[in-house]
């Protein structure tokens, strides 16, 4: 832009040097916001890309893949598809299971079972030592033989022949390394934590004899797309509807769906942190404009165009944003690296039991975070830049009149704020869009925006009413503080709004998590009634992997002191690519005990008895919400032979699984799906048997044959809540960041105001106000900002919590949560915020006190 160059030095660069601290703070404010967004998305994309890489590498050269909606693919399906071989198509079966190493660190690994004779046509294997090709590796056919990648072998100090203990299928298996694969092709899958074994070994180790989980179809070289499409059609026609055929990549979509709610929720929280950060830019640029008003007048007088002035200040915002975003992206990368274990852990605990993902600096994510930071910063500089452009040439407008002009917009802004709040209320009505609570998030942002617009009015109204009482109570400093608050409304109100935003976020999340925790705690106490709980040992995996074998269950029932064993068995299924769980328990036991609270409050005993008698299913609340099904509706279960319609007898509350579960009686389940064993088992002891003693007996009986973890009721409850807390640790961390950014904002504002008001401070000193009183006035001002921000934040946070609990939670997870206010936590946190804000006022107050009146008065 013409005329922009000469303006940079006087309007931008020189002041920048003078206000280094303020600029540094602004840049770091943006940086924290951008870093939060970047870290969340980087961690998330690392988890996903690690998974999709695994999917791609495992898919290899396959053009089509048969997958199961239900518990797996019966291996007889291969014979059913044998006809495709006459078309020159190879059928490549595989079964992969997630297991944990039986080593002390319990690393989670993916065990891929293949048919070495056919697998070479689908996947690439390069041997680092030993056989020349997979089909050569006779040793692979030996029971317990596995191939490992070079990297994995190096990490665990393995060589050919090394024993490799594995926890799988509820037992400790002794495998051995039959060959080392070069880190190429499929050996790179699962971040290298992939073990390849013969199908027989994997079926036996995992207790999945008779089952496959994928059949890859490798087409002849150069087969046209039309051939593939026609083949897909024909294969589909020859399979039951519960087996699907399609491109191998669709597995990614399922996983993407699994972690989507998780990602979207975290990203939304991250964006709020960024929003708080951009407030810094607005503040800084506004102050720049105010302080350089005279300079602007002068350069305008010298012929600079309004557009050039506008551009200079927009550039200032953009420059701050760019610097902050660069720093934020770097910081975010570091954070993501560090937090990957935590975030990845959370995602994998709930959604994907998988080997730990490798960090991946996704360029798209980095760019997104950077651009988001720059755009938000530039946008927030728009208003002050426009104001700068309106400064008349050579005008020396008095400071007060600018603020006065701002004050006149207080009411219209407040009105707009009310409109936005009304819209926020309206946005709680519509349902989810594509399974995501889009309107819910809109509602939260509208609450934030609306409350922010109300902030100026809140400040002036409170200042007016509080003036006299405060003066009487706190002395003349209160009046000085009040005058400053309303006098610099444009910035004090933004500081209040930003602090309110931070506090609101904290309150909302605290209330939501607190309510959730309370609800879950109560649910846990209602449902976890047994004395002991058994699940397969799973090393470091967050959830139990594999199954307890049927003979272990039979053994459990025979242990003296064990009165009853209630086994729960489930498998992951998908419907139209949406994952859910099909499980079973003994409905007879529920009918007797009633330990499955129903969502509609009916007596679980009656419902379970009815379901048992009629062969009906119970579904969990998230399932009912997700699929829009309820009592009396029919759900089609993906039995290997085809879909089986089952009527829903009732909806029960379940906070253990947000994907939704269909539960049928164990006998029916066994008949439909041909599965036995248990994912977990509840053990009831005979009266008088001490749980610890019972646990010892069970462990002694299982010892040597099975690797099954047995926990007492008390430890399981504690573990469940610990898992819960771990899951929400990240939200608390985000909270803390938002509050910290807001408190930093108060600090930044106060420093700016003190610098801006030097002359006024000098005047006060001339009028006889001591340095101590000037200092006190600044502290009071900070206290007022803190109090206003906190009160406004509480109101705003309450509204946001309501939306989170009753709209966003219901729409993304389908859970009913009773609102509960964690009073002590909130009181403590708010006290902390207040204290932090007051502490943040110490430096600006001292800065004000140190103002040399003679020096500032001479500056005229």
């Amino acid at each position, binding site marked *: 832009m013409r005329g922009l160059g000469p303006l940079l030095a006087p309007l931008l660069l020189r002041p920048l040097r003078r206000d280094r601290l303020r600029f540094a703070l602004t840049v770091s404010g943006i940086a924290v916001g951008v870093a939060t967004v970047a870290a969340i998305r980087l961690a998330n994309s690392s988890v996903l890309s690690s998974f999709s890489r695994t999917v791609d590498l495992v898919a290899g050269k396959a053009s089509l893949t048969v997958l199961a909606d239900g518990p797996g693919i019966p291996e007889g399906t291969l014979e059913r598809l044998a006809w495709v071989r006459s078309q020159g198509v190879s059928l490549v079966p595989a079964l992969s299971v997630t297991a944990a190493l039986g080593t002390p660190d319990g690393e989670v690994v993916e065990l891929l079972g293949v048919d070495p004779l056919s697998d070479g046509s689908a996947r690439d294997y390069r041997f680092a030592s030993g056989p020349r090709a997979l089909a050569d590796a006779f040793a692979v056919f030996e029971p317990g033989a596995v191939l490992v990648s070079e990297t994995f072998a190096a990490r665990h100090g393995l060589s050919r022949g090394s024993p490799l203990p594995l926890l799988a299928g509820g037992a400790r298996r002794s495998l051995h390394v039959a060959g080392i694969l070069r880190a190429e092709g499929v050996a790179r899958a699962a971040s290298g934590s992939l073990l390849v074994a013969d199908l027989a070994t994997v079926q036996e180790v995992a207790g999945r004899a008779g089952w496959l989980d994928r059949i890859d179809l490798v087409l002849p070289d150069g087969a046209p797309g039309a051939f593939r499409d026609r083949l897909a059609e024909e294969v589909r026609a020859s399979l039951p509807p519960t087996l699907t055929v399609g491109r191998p990549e669709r597995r990614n979509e399922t996983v993407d769906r699994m972690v989507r709610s998780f990602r979207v929720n975290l990203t939304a929280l991250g964006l709020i942190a960024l929003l708080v950060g951009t407030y810094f830019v607005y503040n800084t640029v506004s102050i720049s404009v105010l302080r350089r008003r005279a300079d602007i007048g002068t350069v305008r007088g010298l012929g600079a165009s309004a557009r050039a002035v506008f551009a200079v200040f927009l550039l200032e915002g953009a420059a701050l944003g760019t610097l902050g975003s660069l720093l934020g992206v770097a910081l975010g990368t570091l954070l993501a690296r560090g937090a990957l274990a935590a975030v990845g852990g959370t995602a994998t605990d709930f959604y994907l039991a998988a080997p730990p993902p490798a960090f991946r600096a996704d360029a798209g994510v980095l760019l997104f975070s950077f651009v988001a930071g720059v755009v938000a910063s530039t946008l927030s500089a728009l208003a002050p830049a426009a104001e700068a452009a309106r400064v008349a040439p050579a005008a020396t407008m*008095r*400071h*007060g*009149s600018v*603020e*006065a002009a701002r004050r006149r917009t207080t009411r219209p802004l407040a009105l707009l704020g009310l409109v936005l709040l009304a819209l926020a209320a309206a946005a709680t009505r519509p349902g989810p869009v594509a399974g995501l609570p889009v309107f819910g998030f809109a509602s939260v942002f509208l609450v934030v925006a609306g409350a922010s617009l109300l902030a100026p009015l809140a400040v002036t109204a409170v200042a007016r009413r509080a003036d*006299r009482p405060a*003066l*009487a109570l706190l*002395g*003349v400093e209160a*009046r*000085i503080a009040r*005058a*400053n608050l*309303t*006098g*610099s409304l444009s910035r004090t109100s933004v500081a209040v709004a930003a602090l309110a935003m931070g506090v609101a976020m904290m309150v909302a999340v605290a209330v939501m998590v607190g309510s959730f925790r309370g609800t879950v705690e109560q649910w846990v106490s209602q449902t976890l009634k047994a004395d002991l709980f058994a699940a397969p040992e799973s090393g470091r995996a967050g959830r139990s992997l594999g199954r307890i074998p049927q003979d272990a269950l039979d053994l459990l029932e025979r242990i003296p002191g064990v009165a009853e064993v209630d086994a729960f068995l489930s498998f992951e299924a998908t419907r139209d690519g949406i994952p859910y769980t099909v499980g079973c328990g003994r409905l007879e036991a529920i009918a007797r005990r009633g330990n499955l609270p129903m969502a509609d409050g009916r007596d679980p005993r009656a419902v379970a008895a009815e379901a048992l008698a009629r062969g009906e299913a119970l579904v969990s609340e998230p399932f009912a919400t997700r699929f829009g099904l309820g009592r009396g509706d029919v759900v089609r279960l993906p039995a290997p032979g085809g879909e089986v319609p089952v009527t829903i007898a009732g909806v029960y509350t379940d906070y253990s699984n947000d994907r939704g579960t269909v539960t049928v009686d164990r006998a029916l389940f066994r008949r439909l799906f041909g599965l036995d064993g248990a994912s977990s088992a509840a053990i009831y002891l005979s009266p008088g048997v001490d749980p610890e003693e019972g646990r010892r007996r069970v462990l002694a009986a299982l010892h040597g044959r099975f690797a099954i973890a047995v926990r007492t009721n008390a430890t399981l409850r504690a573990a469940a809540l610990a898992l819960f807390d771990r899951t929400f640790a990240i939200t608390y961390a985000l909270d803390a960041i938002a509050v910290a950014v807001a408190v930093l904002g108060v600090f930044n504002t106060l420093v700016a105001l003190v610098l801006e008001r030097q*002359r*006024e401070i000098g*005047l*006060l*000193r*001339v*009028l*006889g*106000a*001591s*340095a101590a*009183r000037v200092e006190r006035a600044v502290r009071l001002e900070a206290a007022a900002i803190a109090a206003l921000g906190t009160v406004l934040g509480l109101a705003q946070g309450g509204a946001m919590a309501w939306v989170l609990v009753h709209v966003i939670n219901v729409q993304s997870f389908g859970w009913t949560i009773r609102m509960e206010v964690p009073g002590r936590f909130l009181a403590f946190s708010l006290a902390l915020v207040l204290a932090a804000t007051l502490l943040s006022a110490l430096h600006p107050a001292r800065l004000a006190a140190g103002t040399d*009146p*003679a020096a500032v*008065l*001479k500056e*005229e």
Partner: protein
Amino acid sequence: MGAAVSVREARKTYPGGVEALAGVSFDLSPGTFAALLGPSGCGKSTLLHLLGALEKPTSGSVAVDGHDLAALSEAARDDYRLRRAATVFQLYNLLPTMTALENVALPLLLDGLPRPEAEARAEKGLAEVGLSARKDAFPYELSGGQMQRVAVARALAPRPALLLADEPTGSLDSRSGAQVLDLVGELVAARGVTVVLATHDAAAAGRASRVLRLLDGRLVDG
């Protein structure tokens, strides 16, 4: 009762070697209306800062009512400015974030007067400068002359013994300037306040009972 001012060989040298005052001596008896004349940069403002206890002389002494200002403690100097010496500047005398009344009441409140009393006295002060009607106006709503009248009212509200005025009419048109000076003249005469009025306007000096001419940091005569 006005203050007795005694300045002895006051020098002020700023860091960097700029000598604002090069040894100034004079005495003012209580109730004197002194005009301090001189071109810009002659050291007028520095002399006023010394008299207002905002700065200390590099050497020499500035005493008011027999007290050497440089020897006073920080608290005593705050107290001195609050109760004894009031200042009116050329521009930006008022706190922009307070109304006229609040501005005038501020030094009284600072002195610990309860609000009703402080505001009553402030209203009286505003009445004396003819601005009762504008007491709730903010500075930016007032004309330059009105602002200076409020500044005078605020300066005199704590009943100071010494009024230091630094070009109070410098940015006013001549009519408003004259009005303000008339007002000051009347009020100080009634109260017997000692006045030091820095100006480069010879006409303003006409009201003074004593004229001090300052040139390059020295008194040239009187």
